[in-house]
């Protein structure tokens, strides 16, 4: 099986917008070639994680080896690389694409090209892929193959005249796809005699095998028993097993050039295996690594706290376990006066944040509260020192800051032109700068540069609501720029609430400050004393609300028989105060802060 001649191998990935049929097509390709027995077939075969299957997204890369007897009578090895589709995982996607020579571009024949399709197809073009357009859902009455082909040519600049028209759902023309893979995609290149160079595409933790590494061999041979070296950190491991995915793991003696498969080497932590790394022979290492390696850097940070303080230990264990399987997730312990003990966590993006939060609550049964997501700012201090700011609470005094830089993104928004006006207004409100505005039929494509800070704060939700869900959105990180940014502190009874402080552009500080003060006024119950709620930049108050003291709270009747009852009630109230956070003479229930943060999300 392995050591297949190079011209009989095709490595390809599938690019598609969510719901355009990527997983269904993958299922059909696997099914029609008998790769998986009918009784083992299930939908979204390659998405193992419960969350992936449920949300129809791919989080971890995976491959499956398909044997296909083509019309020319030869049997080909087709390695399908299933890649994460979301921009949060752009780097992971780029490494998956680097493991292939071609891509299938799947477009819904009625909906046409979407923002996400575009970002991924550009990545495939960057990876020098041969791209075969596939029009899916051709059987639907709303399908407009001619229009969508034209759109592919206009928007992406790909010749779509030979696009393969299929219905993945009904299985229509799957054969056409398989033939196109064989005839239109190039075979891999490589030298079996050269020193080993294999691309580390992804890795995950298996409780029996340790870390399983998904690899693509470029040159040389990967063999059981071989001593290999990770070129990024120099760590050496002895291979225990190599093999292929069908998609079940099947052991093999070796993997040759052009092959995709896995290796295990008693590696304990996923963080010891870096996506994009080059694996080489420890005794005869390659002179240079494969291009494109980047260590994973979190883009968005937020605090995660257990709703019940007693769950902190459980949270600690859970983030540790999660990190075993997700090296792009970062965490460090943090204490908040308002929320207690928790972790400051770094993520590749908002979807990644959401996924981690959901996995923590689902797989580990934790009830968590997240503080508002913050991007990573670069601060230049007056003494010349440069620091990265992950948490607005850690912001140094403004007097020692010379400049604050914030990350920008390049966003692609596709929207029916009926909704274009409000979308442009939203982008402008969020300090966006238009790069390009083009039309394809009645759909507009707006390219904007936006500060990431403006996007992490309810941008998706607003975009969805003003376009009635029709707008699609994708982005890539596009450098840092200096900005007129300020830290807004929220003060309750004149004391800052660390968990609620945030960074904003000066022009929006008043509005955002006012909105959070108003919200807290609604959420914090009246108590014995009036409570001032303020938003401030440094020492300057920019918004203020006051929660008036409660006006009457006293038991009407209290005689000899009521004393014990009243005292026990009092004991209970005092016990309840342990769940309160003290701000001078007033105590605020933690639940009020949690509610404030929940409304933010």
């Amino acid at each position, binding site marked *: 099986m392995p050591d297949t001649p190079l011209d009989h191998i095709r490595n390809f990935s599938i690019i598609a917008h969510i719901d355009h049929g990527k997983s269904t097509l993958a299922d059909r390709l696997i099914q029609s070639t008998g790769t998986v027995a009918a009784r083992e077939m299930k939908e979204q075969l390659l998405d193992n994680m419960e969350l992936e299957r449920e949300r129809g997204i791919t989080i971890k890369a995976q491959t499956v080896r398909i044997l296909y007897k083509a019309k020319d009578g030869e049997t080909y090895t087709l390695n399908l690389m299933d890649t994460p589709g979301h921009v949060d995982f752009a780097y992971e996607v780029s490494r998956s694409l680097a493991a292939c020579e071609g891509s299938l571009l799947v477009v819904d024949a009625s909906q046409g090209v979407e923002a996400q399709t575009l970002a991924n197809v550009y990545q495939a073009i960057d990876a020098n892929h041969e791209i075969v357009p596939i029009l899916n859902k051709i059987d639907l009455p709303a399908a407009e193959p001619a229009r969508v082909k034209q759109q592919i040519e206009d928007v992406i600049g790909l010749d779509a005249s030979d696009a393969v028209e299929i219905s993945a759902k009904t299985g229509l023309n799957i054969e056409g796809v398989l033939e196109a893979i064989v005839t239109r995609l190039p075979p891999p290149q490589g030298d079996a005699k050269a020193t080993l160079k294999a691309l580390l595409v992804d890795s995950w933790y298996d409780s029996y095998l340790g870390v399983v590494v998904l690899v693509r061999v470029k040159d040389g041979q990967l063999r059981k028993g071989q001593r290999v070296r990770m070129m990024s950190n120099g760590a050496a491991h002895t291979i225990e097993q190599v093999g292929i995915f069908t998609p079940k793991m099947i052991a093999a003696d070796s993997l040759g050039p052009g092959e995709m498969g896995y290796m295990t080497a008693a590696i304990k932590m996923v963080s010891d295996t870096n996506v994009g790394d080059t694996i080489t022979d420890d005794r005869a290492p390659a002179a240079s690594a494969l291009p494109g390696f980047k260590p994973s850097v979190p883009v968005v940070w937020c605090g995660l706290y257990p709703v019940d303080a007693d769950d902190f230990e459980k949270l600690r264990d859970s983030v540790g376990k999660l990190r075993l399987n997700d090296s792009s997730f970062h965490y460090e312990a943090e204490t908040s006066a308002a929320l207690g003990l928790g972790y400051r966590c770094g993520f590749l993006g908002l979807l990644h944040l959401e996924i981690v939060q959901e996995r923590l609550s689902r797989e580990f049964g934790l009830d968590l509260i997240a503080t508002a997501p913050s991007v990573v700012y670069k601060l230049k201090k007056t003494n010349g020192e440069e620091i990265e700011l992950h948490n607005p609470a850690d912001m140094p005094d403004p007097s020692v800051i010379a400049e604050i830089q914030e990350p920008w993104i390049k966003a692609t928004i596709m929207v029916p032109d009926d909704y274009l006006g409000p979308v442009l207004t939203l982008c402008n409100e969020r300090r966006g700068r238009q790069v390009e505005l083009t039309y394809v039929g009645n759909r507009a494509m707006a390219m904007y540069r936006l500060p990431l800070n403006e996007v992490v704060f309810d941008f998706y939700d607003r975009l969805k609501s003003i376009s009635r869900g029709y707008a699609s959105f994708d982005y890539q990180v596009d450098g840092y720029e200096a900005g007129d940014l300020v830290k807004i502190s929220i003060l309750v009874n004149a004391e800052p609430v660390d968990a609620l402080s945030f960074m904003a552009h000066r022009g929006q500080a008043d509005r955002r400050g006012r909105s959070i003060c108003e919200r807290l006024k609604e959420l914090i119950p*009246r*108590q*014995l*004393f009036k409570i001032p709620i303020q938003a401030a930049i440094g020492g300057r108050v920019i918004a203020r609300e006051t929660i008036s*003291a*409660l*006006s*009457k*709270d*006293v*038991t*009407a*009747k*209290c*005689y*000899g*028989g009521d*004393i*014990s009852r*009243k*005292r026990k009630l*009092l*004991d209970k*109230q*005092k016990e309840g*105060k342990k769940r309160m956070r003290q701000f001078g*003479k007033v*105590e605020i229930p933690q639940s009020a802060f949690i509610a404030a943060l929940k409304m933010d999300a």
Partner: protein
Amino acid sequence: MEPLALYIHWPFCRAKCPYCDFNSHVRERVDQAGWRHALLTELRYEAARTGRRPLASIFFGGGTPSLMDPETAGALIAEARALFDAPADLEITLEANPTSVEAAKLADFHAAGVNRLSLGIQALDGAALQFLGRQHDAAQAIAALETGRAIFPRLSFDLIYARPGQTEAAWRAELRRALDIAADHLSLYQLTIEPGTRFATLHARGEIALPDDDAAARLYGATAEEAARFGLLPYEVSNYARPGAESRHNLVYWRYGDYLGIGPGAHQRLLVDGALIAVRRHRAPEEWFARVARDGHAIVEETALAPEDRAREALLMGLRLTEGIDPARITARSGLPFAACIDPTMLTACLDEDYLVWREGRLCATEEGRLRLDAMLPVLLR
């Protein structure tokens, strides 16, 4: 040794009022002689333990003690006078309902020794009385007040305000009408929804809407104003009296003094050799009766309270009083230094806010402070 207050509980009512969460029960027939004997038995049991002490007051509460045979009250009063040292002017209060049946017995109760009457008027408005589930109408209420005033040297009555839909003007008018009848003491309670009552069910279903805190606070202020016009001053959160006409019996509770409680569900606090003993009796009338017959008492719990609990009880009661608390008294009743009972930061904050004030060495809640006492206690007390 400080004088002892004696509470006697009569647990029976004609009907259960929908707002009431007191230990009251409706029974077709009550064995008056049997109950007289049982109450006397429990009184003798306690007197044997306390020894002969000065007596401060007797209070017949309930339930509806005016449903008792006057001679039962007479027998209990005579026995208490025999067992304890009672002054000639011993305050003896009876709670009564203003139905005509009960009003007819008032003279007999006076003859039996009762010298202070507390009438459960609750409202002078027919619709309100019906809503409150009372057995009397407005005319009977007025008649009972006049009868009571003619018979008893001291008269108090209860009213319930902040009823659904009640305006401030209507409450002032109703209160003035009641004050015209010239009592020397009034208990004016804000209507509150107590768990387990009929009103709690209705309230949960949204069928009873109470005024909000701001409205309730305005009604409270109006209440004090109207009472003051007639020379009645607030000496406790819900109690108003002409100076000197305060309920001596209830002052014992609020000053966290010693009191005996006889009858079903009655509570008792007694300082014995430096230990403060809390006693609770069985609540169910028949079970209480059976236990007294068997054991001579129906005590279900008897505990020496921890010093912290004593301090909390003394403070939560004492701060209800306009006169406030004497720190030395708290120490005497709890065994703890006053400073150990109060959070100093919160004390300063409450003083700054004018919720509390020091008056002649006593810590007093102001009117604004009394209005918010339930919110103040958990932060103020340690």
